[in-house]
């Protein structure tokens, strides 16, 4: 352990300290207001993001962590994302008075888990990171257990996540059994045709596929998205998923490239099934949160199309897609959170009728966001799809791209359905909706970023290419 390592570890230390500080403040003899707690935890997150700037890249810490630009980009992204989640939660009515030190420290710990995941240079690190991400989520899904469906969602997620983690772990152990090492670089340097390593990677893919909600590992997603409070759903659908995705990208595209090539057909099959099933399930879904869950499943299918291209363009496309995907989902779930009723989220799509019209600022943001999800130019969603499908075409998988394009066309149907409802005329009674500045600013910032990344994708693409 050198002093340079300390700099590399600084963001992790800041996050842990942040979690402890918030917990300590929570049990302080004098009452500390929730606003203070939230501010403190957001400060720690921003401080963590700031310390990543100090990183000297690339280097490894004890061969356990790899500190590089990819890790930095996403570590910062997660920390800003977590700040957004905290702001959303702070203004979220259904868990009012329950967002206290436990909640905030769990979010900080989950962010730590995500950061560990994207900087892991060892399969054990990845496993521990995955679990540090997962265990807080068990509780966060069931936050305020008296909400309807909260406990059921928590139980389901805990059991199924454990189930998938068992596959993940089993894959790790088989990788270890076949090679005698857990280090990613060492695993990547194995050039001989190691059959068991492929099996191990497949099992790891099952575990990762569960977190990414790929079909057929997807079935938990709608239930959990529905059960969780909207800010936590946003956490699930955006940064938590992207953390796992970036780990997958690092594992396959950067470290185990032999395995990546071997897995291409499987990735292709998963991509096709995921796209089709996700879109079909979303088609007539009436519950907005479930619908968005299915739509996010379909989006992972598109990302897999990029990954199954097997070239560097596909990798870059997947990274770009991951960023835009997270932004889009953050934005849309922030909208769901903003429009929540005092006791729970609006579930049925019809309950959102006319809301975009009544709140024009949010309405425009929703429009942008849905168009981006549908992949229409000039939003970032269009560029992301273009790059992803272009990568598949470049690799010669025209049929994959064709299926993806057809699916994109299909997805227009339900995105427009949402859009129409949001802009529809409200016929029945108007309930009062109090929109907080914080939530509003998150929606606006993320939709501006979506448009900005679509019109000027250059600056982020240049960055990605240098990773």
């Amino acid at each position, binding site marked *: 352990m050198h002093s340079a390592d300390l700099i590399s570890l600084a963001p992790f230390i800041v996050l842990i300290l942040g979690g402890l500080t918030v917990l300590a403040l929570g049990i302080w003899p004098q009452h500390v207001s929730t606003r203070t707690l939230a501010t403190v935890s957001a400060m720690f997150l921003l401080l963590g993001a700031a310390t990543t700037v100090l990183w000297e890249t690339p280097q490894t810490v004890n061969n356990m962590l790899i500190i590089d630009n990819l890790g930095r980009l996403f570590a910062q992204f997660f920390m800003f994302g977590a700040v957004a989640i905290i702001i959303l939660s702070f203004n979220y009515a259904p868990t009012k008075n329950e967002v206290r030190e436990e909640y905030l420290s769990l979010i900080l710990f989950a962010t730590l888990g995500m950061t560990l995941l994207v900087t892991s240079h060892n399969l*054990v690190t990845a*496993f*521990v990171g995955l*679990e540090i991400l*997962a*265990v807080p989520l*068990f*509780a966060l899904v*069931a936050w305020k*257990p008296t909400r*309807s*469906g909260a*406990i*059921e*969602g*928590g*139980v*389901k997620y*805990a*059991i199924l*996540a*454990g*189930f998938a*983690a*068992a596959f993940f*772990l*089993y894959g*790790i*152990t*088989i990788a*270890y*059994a076949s090679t*005698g*090492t*857990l280090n990613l670089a060492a695993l990547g340097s194995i050039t001989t045709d190691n059959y068991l390593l492929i099996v191990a990677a497949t099992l790891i893919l099952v575990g990762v596929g569960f977190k990414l909600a790929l079909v057929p590992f997807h079935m938990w997603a*709608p*239930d959990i998205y*529905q*059960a969780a409070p909207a800010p936590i759903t946003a956490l699930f659908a955006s940064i938590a998923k992207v953390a796992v995705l970036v780990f997958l990208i690092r594992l396959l595209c950067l470290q185990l490239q032999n395995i990546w090539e071997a897995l291409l057909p499987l990735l292709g099959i998963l991509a096709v099934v995921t796209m089709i099933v996700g879109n079909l*399930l979303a*088609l*007539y*879904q*009436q*519950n907005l949160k*479930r619908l968005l869950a299915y739509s996010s499943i379909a989006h992972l299918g598109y990302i897999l199309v990029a990954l199954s291209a097997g070239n560097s363009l596909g990798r870059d496309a997947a990274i770009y897609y991951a960023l835009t995907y997270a932004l889009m989902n953050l934005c849309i779930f922030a909208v769901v959170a903003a429009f929540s009723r005092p006791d729970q989220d609006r579930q049925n799509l019809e309950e959102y009728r006319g809301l975009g019209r009544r709140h024009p600022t949010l309405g425009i943001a929703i429009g942008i966001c849905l168009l981006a999800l549908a992949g229409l130019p000039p939003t970032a969603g269009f560029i992301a799809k273009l790059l992803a499908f272009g990568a598949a075409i470049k690799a010669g998988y025209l049929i994959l791209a064709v299926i993806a394009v057809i699916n994109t066309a299909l997805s227009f149907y339900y995105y427009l359905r949402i859009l129409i409802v949001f802009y529809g005329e409200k016929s029945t009674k108007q309930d009062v909706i109090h929109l907080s500045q914080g939530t509003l600013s998150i929606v606006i910032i993320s939709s501006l970023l979506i448009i900005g990344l679509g019109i000027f994708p250059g600056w982020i693409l240049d960055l990605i290419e240098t990773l």
Partner: protein
Amino acid sequence: MIPLTHSLIIAALLFSLGLLIILLRRELLFILMGLEVMFNGAALTAVAAGQYWNNADGQVLTIFLMVVTAAELAVALILVWLAYEHFKVTQIDMLTQLKDDTRGEPP
């Protein structure tokens, strides 16, 4: 001398058995037990492989596994208990409030 393959196959058997328990039993507690069996299959693989390669990584991995399992199980058990407290539910069949609403015809 036990060949590594035998240990691995026993571990695979434990893993599959745990899986089967989860798939077949409806009681939440049994399902969690099945989860433990699955994790132990993985642990056996790690230990056996660690001996085969003669390094400590396998055992360290197993220790982390135990820690993680304990943490996960603690939260999962609390949730199961909550389910019992609130709904007097011990079986997974009764936890089906969250699902696709298929009553209504699609528009």
